[in-house]
């Protein structure tokens, strides 16, 4: 017996070690099928990650440090050209932003009408990629933020380009992120134009495919794929990738290959969405009007002469009674302008009085030049010469627009550009003082 054990000792030990591993594997598979948590294997994974990650952190730190020194102090070739290019890009994006803001406002109103709920990304944590599994059979990465930074399991991980993956395991100072290119991943997706829904999955060779799209549907290469929000992990509308190939697949479904927008093989920094808010969009009751529309209204057209009460006291005509009441600083935005000219429907330069139709009224002695109809600091807006009219004040019941942003006001450097939108309040009940005029009912543009 002893000789048999001695003779086959190596083989017996091999079988024993293999048996133990197979047993452990079987237990994990069985528990994995019943529960999603990996509590049993968590401890030894922590040990392994704890042994490797300090070196990875150190190397990433050294690499970033030397990279920063090189890029910030030595290698500055082409920075001026790039700066000029970026400025041009900013200008284009500002124009685009104005358009998109209008669309977003409209969308908010519609969503509010339909009582939709929206998801907002309210808080993110930036993290650095410090490692990977090192195997193409397990497409995961490690980031340098973990439980202590508020990261939890199943949180979405993104970059500016698009979706990266979700948090799979969380350690105190690190977290494991499952990439969308892994075979076991799944992301609810929707095609941007055709609005077809499916599931994004990884394949064994690292490709990404869109599954569960019926074969009788038409999908064109080049179409963008967005998150559908159906998986309750990724907010709706985030870019995932672009269709590169669409053809018949197995069963009744199409085989759609996707090229991810985020470069999954060269990730350096990622964002973890640690907080999402779901709320109903609030539609503002105020009617938003473009600044250009208001300016157009200010241009004199055929003035409609309102009825003037001959018994009205002179104080009701601020242009005549209080010419110096308005400040001469040219401040026209916000509430202050409305306070100085409480009866004017539009916010114009306090140095001039306006008629009902927006034509400048009589010029006070300290007023600006006629060509500076709207005094906005250094940027004059050419208007017609002032017309000395008999128009008086605008009634208090007319809408009072509140300028949120004056497009012509020079902005300080570094100020964030905002779309030139003017918020116009609806008509309010008359709150005029006793000596004021009765409400004007001509609805003339202000």
């Amino acid at each position, binding site marked *: 017996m002893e000789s048999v054990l001695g003779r086959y000792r190596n083989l017996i*030990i*091999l079988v024993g070690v293999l048996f133990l591993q197979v047993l452990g594997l079987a237990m994990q598979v069985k528990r994995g099928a019943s529960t999603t948590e990996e509590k049993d294997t968590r401890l*030894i994974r922590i040990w392994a990650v704890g042994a490797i990650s300090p070196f990875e952190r150190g190397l990433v730190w050294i690499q970033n440090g030397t990279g920063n020194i090189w890029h910030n102090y030595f290698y500055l070739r082409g920075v001026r050209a790039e700066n000029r290019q970026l400025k041009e890009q900013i200008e284009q994006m500002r124009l685009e932003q104005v358009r998109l803001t209008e669309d977003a406002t409209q969308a908010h109103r519609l969503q509010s009408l339909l009582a939709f709920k929206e998801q907002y990304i309210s808080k993110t944590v930036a993290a650095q990629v410090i490692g990977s599994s090192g195997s*193409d059979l397990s497409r995961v*990465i490690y980031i340098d933020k973990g439980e202590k930074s508020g990261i939890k399991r199943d949180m979405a991980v993104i970059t500016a380009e698009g979706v990266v993956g979700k948090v799979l395991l969380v350690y105190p100072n690190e977290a494991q992120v499952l990439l969308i290119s892994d075979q076991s991943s799944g992301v609810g997706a929707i095609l941007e134009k055709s609005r077809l829904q499916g599931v994004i999955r990884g394949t064994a060779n690292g490709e990404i495919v869109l599954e569960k799209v019926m074969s009788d549907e038409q999908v064109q290469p080049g179409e963008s794929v967005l998150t559908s929000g159906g998986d309750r992990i990724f907010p709706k509308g985030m870019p995932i990738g672009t269709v590169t190939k669409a053809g018949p697949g197995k069963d009744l479904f199409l085989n759609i290959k996707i090229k991810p927008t985020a470069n999954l093989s060269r990730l350096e920094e990622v964002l973890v969405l640690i907080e999402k808010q779901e709320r109903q969009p609030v539609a503002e009751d105020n009617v938003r009007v473009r600044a250009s529309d208001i300016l157009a209204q200010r241009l004199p057209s055929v003035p409609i002469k309102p009825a003037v009460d001959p018994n009205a006291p002179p104080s009701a005509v601020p242009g005549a009674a209080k010419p110096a009441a308005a400040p001469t600083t040219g401040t026209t935005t916000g509430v202050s302008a409305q306070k100085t000219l409480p009866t004017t429907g539009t916010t114009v330069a306090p140095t001039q009085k306006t008629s009902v139709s927006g034509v400048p009224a009589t010029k006070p002695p300290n007023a600006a030049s006629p060509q500076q109809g709207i005094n906005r600091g250094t940027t004059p807006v050419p208007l017609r010469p002032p017309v000395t009219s008999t128009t008086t004040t605008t009634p208090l019941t007319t809408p009072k627009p509140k300028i949120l942003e004056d497009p012509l006001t020079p902005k300080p450097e570094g100020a964030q550009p905002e779309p030139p939108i003017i918020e116009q309040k609806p008509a309010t009940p008359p709150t005029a003082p006793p000596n004021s005029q009765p409400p004007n009912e001509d609805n003339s543009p202000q």
Partner: protein
Amino acid sequence: MRTTALNNVPITYTSNEQVEVYRFSIPVTIGVPLLALFLQAFVPLRFPRFGVYVDLPLLVTIFFAMARRSPIAGLLTGAFIGLAQDMLGHNPIGIYGISKTIVGYGASSLGVKLDVENAGARFLVTLGFYLIHSAVYFTVARGMVNMTQTWSWLHGLLAGLANAVIGVFLYFILDRFKQRT
């Protein structure tokens, strides 16, 4: 008399050096596998193809197993390195462990019988064991864990060749840490 005759039968080896059994210092025994695991996890961040084609922990397993020429030491080395590699991924722990245990056992058993000190033998041994490793991994992953795996001979051969080339150079570097018993 008969026993004496049996004891006098000379044991033949393919080379004189094969009778040499090497050992390694503790820092090398622990540090080299850890470094291999670290590089395997870190290098793919900068060179994504590295993770697809190269398996440094496997090369280290083969090297230690062949140098020690002890099947038990070889299989244990393979088991530990494989399990550590499993821990870095998200798949169940044990798939790499089983694969590398078999490779470690096989490499050390082969090291007893063959001259594995020259570059040509090392190249072929590494290529062969890479394919065995991939086959075992594929079998376990698909048969036990029910993972979706596709076998590609082309990928296997390319990766095997890449590992063999890298292995030949790596073994020459690691030869410096050998200590004769």
